[in-house]
């Protein structure tokens, strides 16, 4: 079997790999030592806490830095406002504290839906004669509006509050047990431009309503009034 080239090769390979402490082998060993050192250093390097930033591109880092700067500005502004308020409340009269408490009460009432709200907003009409728009679409719409800064919302004749629910039933979508009716009307108080943009992004709520064969229309209203409220509960 000595003429088998593979055997021959592996035998000579073993001979080559055998321990031969001469100068060239030591040099090669040294080179491999350097290689091992490099590899282990390079592999161990990403153990640092800031590893994600190490590999990020410059443009991304600039973007992240900008975001952080903007966020810091916002937080600083809020901090300044609250510090000022704290000073006023500590040094000021009871009337001032009362006014601030009233203001907060009013804001909380708007959020909890126990008071009528008037303000600029968006009136949305979804004309859906075939009943193709189901509860998830409406939930998406409400969620999108909330993200876009809607302060108060109503769907049909139901005020949307923190525990409002949507369900598909035999006769269309129900909101808190009340049928939404047709066409579906959604009122949202907040910045009309922001909310309008949020709804009409490609693949967004408006698109998904239209792909279901329903008609989606929204118009900004300067004095939108949401008069329907939910009863105040004490818990």
């Amino acid at each position, binding site marked *: 079997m000595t003429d088998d080239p*593979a055997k021959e*090769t592996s035998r000579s390979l073993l001979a080559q790999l055998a321990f031969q402490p001469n100068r060239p082998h030591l040099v090669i060993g040294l080179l*491999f030592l350097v*290689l091992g050192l490099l590899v*282990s250093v390079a592999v161990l390097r990403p153990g640092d806490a800031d590893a994600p930033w190490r590999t990020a591109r410059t443009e991304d880092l600039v973007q992240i830095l900008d975001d952080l700067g903007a966020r810091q500005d916002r937080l600083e502004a809020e901090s300044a406002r609250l510090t000022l308020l704290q000073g006023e409340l500590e040094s000021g009269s009871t009337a001032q504290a009362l006014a601030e408490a009233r203001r907060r009460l009013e804001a909380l009432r708007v959020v909890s839906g126990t008071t009528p709200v008037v303000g600029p907003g968006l009136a949305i009409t979804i004309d859906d004669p075939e009943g193709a728009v189901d509860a998830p679409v409406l939930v998406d719409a409400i969620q999108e509006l909330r993200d876009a800064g809607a302060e108060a919302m109503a769907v049909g004749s139901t005020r949307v509050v923190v525990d409002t629910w949507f369900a598909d039933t035999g006769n269309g979508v129900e909101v808190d047990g009340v049928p939404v009716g047709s066409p579906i009307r959604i009122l949202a108080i907040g910045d009309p431009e922001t909310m309008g943009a949020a709804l009409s992004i490609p693949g967004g709520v408006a698109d998904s309503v239209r792909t279901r064969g329903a008609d989606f229309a929204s118009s900004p209203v300067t004095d939108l009034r949401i008069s329907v409220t939910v009863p105040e509960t004490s818990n």
Partner: protein
Amino acid sequence: MIAIIGLLVGVAIGILWHPVVPLWMQPYLPIAIVAALDAVFGGFRALMEKRFDDRIFVVSFLSNVVIAAFLVFLGDQLGVGAQMSTGVVVVLAMRIFANAAAIRRILFRA
């Protein structure tokens, strides 16, 4: 044999000592590794083909690393450092694959 011992000792030193790579060297580290790997695979192939030469291996190892680092340095100076790194890595990786294929053909005759 000495080569394997050297590799293991190098890895052990790297893990235990944990050296901090200077910032200016960091872009060259991966390139240097790939270049050295190319030389190692080339040397292994030469070993398989029974034309291995210590001198050639040492010179190719060092020159590979130096040339790869120089190319990346040049790329950095020209403002195309990232692309140059990619190019160098791609070329070296292709050579590694070619050498690996040759080794595989000799070892397994497949």
